[in-house]
């Protein structure tokens, strides 16, 4: 699948675990990018077009909600699909993210096949 995916999570080991699942979805290795927080993700988006962001929320430096707000302010990046992959359960925070147009989320711990299905669904919608 010729799509670029960006995994944003402050845990290096979980990024690697998620990367394995993204590979299973048919995304080539060199199309999978990683960032440890929202700011690093924005820096990557300056240089690489990304079709899908898999976004953790609770991160240091810039959290996932702040990242999403910044993303939606940018006309050139406004169309990037975002899926929340997080332990977040706070209904108010999830409502704020839905208001930013982020409707897909996966609560950790998740089944790998659920993430595969979600990636296919979101990228399929975009294609």
């Amino acid at each position: 699948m010729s799509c670029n995916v960006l995994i944003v999570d402050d845990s290096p080991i979980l990024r690697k675990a998620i990367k394995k699942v993204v590979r299973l979805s048919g995304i080539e290795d060199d199309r999978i990018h990683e960032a440890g927080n929202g700011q690093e993700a924005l820096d990557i988006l300056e240089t690489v077009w990304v079709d899908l962001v898999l976004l953790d929320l609770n991160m240091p430096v810039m959290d996932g909600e702040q990242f999403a707000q910044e993303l939606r302010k940018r006309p050139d990046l406004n169309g990037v699909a975002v899926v929340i992959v997080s332990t977040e359960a706070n209904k108010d925070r999830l409502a704020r993210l839905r208001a930013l147009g982020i409707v897909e989320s996966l609560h950790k711990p998740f089944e790998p096949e659920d993430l595969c299905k979600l990636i296919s669904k979101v990228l399929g919608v975009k294609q």
Partner: protein
Amino acid sequence: MNALTPDRLAQLTVKALERTAFMMADPVAFDPGAFATATRCAVIRYGGPESGIVTLHTTDDFLRGLAANLLGVEPESIDLASYGEDAIKELTNIVGGSVILELGGHECSYTLGLPQLSTSSNGPSQSSQTCCLDCEGHLLFVTWEPVSVPVSLAA
């Protein structure tokens, strides 16, 4: 607020281990002697309608196994100071997330902090609930402790 029993805490942790690291675990009786050998510790705090702390205690061998399963490599190749410690923090984050979802349900208004490594070697307090799991030959202790005063969620 829902109350968490040790059995339910164990169920949430077993699910986290199975889904995240493909590791099987079974509840076993709490053994204070074994707890003393579980020198690796990570904590996560939450706030909201009530505050609390979730703490995981375990051993180096469990950390190696957890990190190895997450990465799909052999345990002997795991550097505990990097991937081992990251693995226990992430498992703590996931168990903490499961705890607040259990407490708050779909109308959850709890907020989770960031997981941190800890050097705490204190045993579980009387106000806490603790479960002990045998995970592929290694012990993992999970403690949930409601606290009466708001806790700082800052890392």
